[in-house]
């Protein structure tokens, strides 16, 4: 029961934090809410027997990726007037239509998902199993993922370098 209760709490936190993140005017505030949301999701991972995933979520997602955002926001040095502008943009005329679309999407997905039954597994999938699979059948995926990271690296290097060079 505890797990279930925890799940609902975590889920609520994740949702609320995400909504807040999406609606903030200040990027840093939003980022912090987002991190909260990611941590809550990590809790859910832990609850459904994926502790390894939970750890990665915290370390890489909430840690590394979000920090990347923080760096960039700091580099751009967005000021208060930027926040005011952002606030001004969140008018109902802007979000009404998209909200309807999102709700429709959600409703449809909900309707479809509702046909799924059954609980998640009672057996936790350990890090070892994941590791075995990762370097067993998925070994090629790891290799390609490396290439993917290389592409991201080269791309961001090329783009960022120019930015830095010009700044000087």
């Amino acid at each position, binding site marked *: 029961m505890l*797990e279930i209760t925890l799940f609902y709490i975590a889920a609520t936190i994740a949702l609320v934090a995400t909504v807040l993140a999406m609606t903030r005017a200040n990027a840093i505030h939003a980022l912090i809410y987002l991190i909260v949301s990611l941590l809550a999701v990590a809790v859910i991972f832990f609850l459904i027997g*994926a502790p390894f995933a939970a750890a990665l979520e915290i370390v890489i997602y909430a840690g590394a990726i979000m920090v990347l*955002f923080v760096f960039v926001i700091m580099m*751009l040095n967005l000021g208060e007037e930027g926040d005011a502008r*952002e606030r001004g943009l969140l008018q109902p005329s802007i979000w009404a239509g*998209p909200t309807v679309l999102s709700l429709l999407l959600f409703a449809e*997905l909900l309707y479809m998902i509702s046909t799924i039954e059954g609980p*998640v597994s009672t057996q936790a999938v350990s890090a070892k199993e994941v590791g075995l699979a990762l370097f067993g059948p998925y070994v090629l995926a790891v290799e390609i993922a490396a290439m993917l990271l290389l592409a*991201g690296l080269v791309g961001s290097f090329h783009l960022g370098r120019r930015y830095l060079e010009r700044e000087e």
Partner: protein
Amino acid sequence: MEGLNIPLNHILLVSTLLFSIGMLGLMIRRNIIFILMSLEVMLNAAALAFVAAGAHWGQPDGQIIFMLILTVAAAEVAVGLGLVLQVQRRFKTLDMDSANRMRG
């Protein structure tokens, strides 16, 4: 960890909600940073669904995909933030609505 019986569809519900919120953020925000954040939310929602499904079937595959999603997210964000810097430098704004030189 005995007696875990969170219904799968509840987790999926959460992930769907997250996905929809991310989508919504994508549609309403003009600031490129927020747009990238929204994308992260959506990817994260998908990741949650994968891990849940993996847990449902008791397979590690869900978590592996989760890791791949992490990679993808990292790569995308890296390039994306690189672009953000360029956008700021050349357009002097982060408002994506102003980036509409091409149309028609």
